[in-house]
């Protein structure tokens, strides 16, 4: 299991960060959804699913049943992007902790907001995929990947 570092935890907690989960359904069709409540606890990603009939919930159940993987992408306000591969390891649907989250959700989103489940995802891979980061990485690892005009000497190069 890889470690969720403090920098990523901080990015996750910033309100302008976008957080996306991609989970396949039982037929293998991917479903992608934004999950604002996604955050880190200890070394797991956690999010609150509010609707039992949600596609993401059905797909996560299928994923935990058959020990499959899911993907997360996190995009910070300053356009840094992180790709995460993980596996759902538990779903909490009842109990005192669930009830405390339920009350918190109601305070945040209103009394008619329900809570279906708290999902816990264990990361297996965390990779920064921001464009600038990936571009530099590709140039270093695979210098063969470039259009020639980008590396063609130009008249103003010597100036």
């Amino acid at each position, binding site marked *: 299991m890889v470690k969720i570092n403090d920098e990523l935890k901080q990015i996750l907690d910033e309100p302008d960060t976008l957080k996306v989960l991609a989970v396949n*359904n*039982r037929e293998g069709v991917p479903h992608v959804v934004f999950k604002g409540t996604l955050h880190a606890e200890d070394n797991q990603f956690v999010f609150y699913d509010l609707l*039992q*009939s949600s596609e993401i919930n*059905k*797909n996560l*159940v*299928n994923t*935990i*049943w*058959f020990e499959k993987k899911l993907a997360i992408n996190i995009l910070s306000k300053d356009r840094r992007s992180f790709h995460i591969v993980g596996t759902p*390891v*538990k*779903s*909490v*649907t*009842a*109990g*005192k902790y*669930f*009830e405390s*989250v*339920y*009350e918190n959700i*109601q305070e945040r989103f209103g009394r008619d907001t329900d*809570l279906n*489940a708290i999902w816990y995802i264990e990361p297996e891979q965390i990779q920064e995929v921001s464009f600038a980061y990936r571009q530099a990485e590709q140039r270093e690892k695979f210098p063969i990947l470039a259009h020639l005009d980008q590396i063609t000497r130009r008249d103003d190069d010597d100036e």
Partner: protein
Amino acid sequence: MARDKEWRKKEPSLKDVQAKYTDLPKSWILKADIQRRGLTYTKAAVDKIDPNIHVVNSDAGSGFRNNLDYVPEGLIWKDGSYLVANFDFDENSARDPYVIDVVDDKIVITDEGEIFDEVLGYWEKPDFYNKRASNGEPLSKYITSRPQRLDISVNKYCHFWDKPGDGCKYCPLTPTYKCSGATEEQYEHKYIREAFAEALKQKGRFTHVMLTGGSILSGKELLDDELESYIAILKILGEFFTTDRFPSQLIATAFNERQLERLKNETKLMTYTPDIEVLNSEKFDWICHGKSREIGYEEWKRRIYKAVDVFGKGNVSSGMVLGVELATPNGFTSEDEAFNVIIPEAEEIISHGVALAANIWRPAPKSILQGQKSASLDYFVRVYREFDRLQRKYCPNPYTDDFRRCGAHIGLDLMRTY
């Protein structure tokens, strides 16, 4: 029945069945096998109970249970579902039970020393279990609880047992009631109201209320007194809600059209479950003789379909005791024969949008069929798999009787990915 020490050699193992049905979750097949074979707890597992947090068998009586040992009432699965196993298992059952143990501080399910899965923990006790009614009795006497469901047992005694040979042969409820020496068939409604009011104070705990009870045959028309009992309590419960209906289920005898209309019009009940129990007319007549004699198999089915007309498609399910069709001496003599007979019958019922809430038959102590041997794991999984295929095709509401609202009949767990 004395346990056959060679039983493992005579039927497919858990791993065999898991390998055969790769389209079904391994953890779900394990759950089926635990319900079939039973479970026991090591001292280490019992030591994991915190009596201030967890609910144990001795906290509240269940009609399915004589055993009031200090053991957890149920387990919580990693996928958020529950293992309902709060019934008596025959100590001398045909097969060895699974053993709940603790390894590396984790609660695990083991068999012959091998770990098969980890569970998240034990069911938690609702707050109202710590409180008492105005008569000083614990509120748990009047309403019991699963992790998210409130259970009200309206009538403790089933009057099909009034006539010898008429009680359902798999059922331990009325024999258990008789053995307990109890005489109070119904509790005073005021205490049920007090328990319900207290339970509703716990935010985020309950999603559903289930009422059930033994059949009452008396009344102006057959079952009228039973109907009146349910209507009276449903009216009390309905007062607590602002909505036209509230998430609720009545598991009761199959009422006729007039009775169904009253149930719908005079209460805020949302769903109704008249349990057909056995999917074959001849076996039904043998196993549920009272129901067969008073109402009849075909009439019971017709009433289920009428209930769909009254409560709406998706709001009616029907329970059954899966596997009892193989009981001796009059049951099917092979699992293949039973499968081939009950699947077309199931399709007819499910095609009306009626999900089959099929419980795994455990030959329960005190039932007439106690001491018998239940079917193989392969049989239960094969039937559940076929029911699931049919329910995906015909049932519009996968939540009516699902893991959250019940959880005992694990076939409907599979509806979680609909």
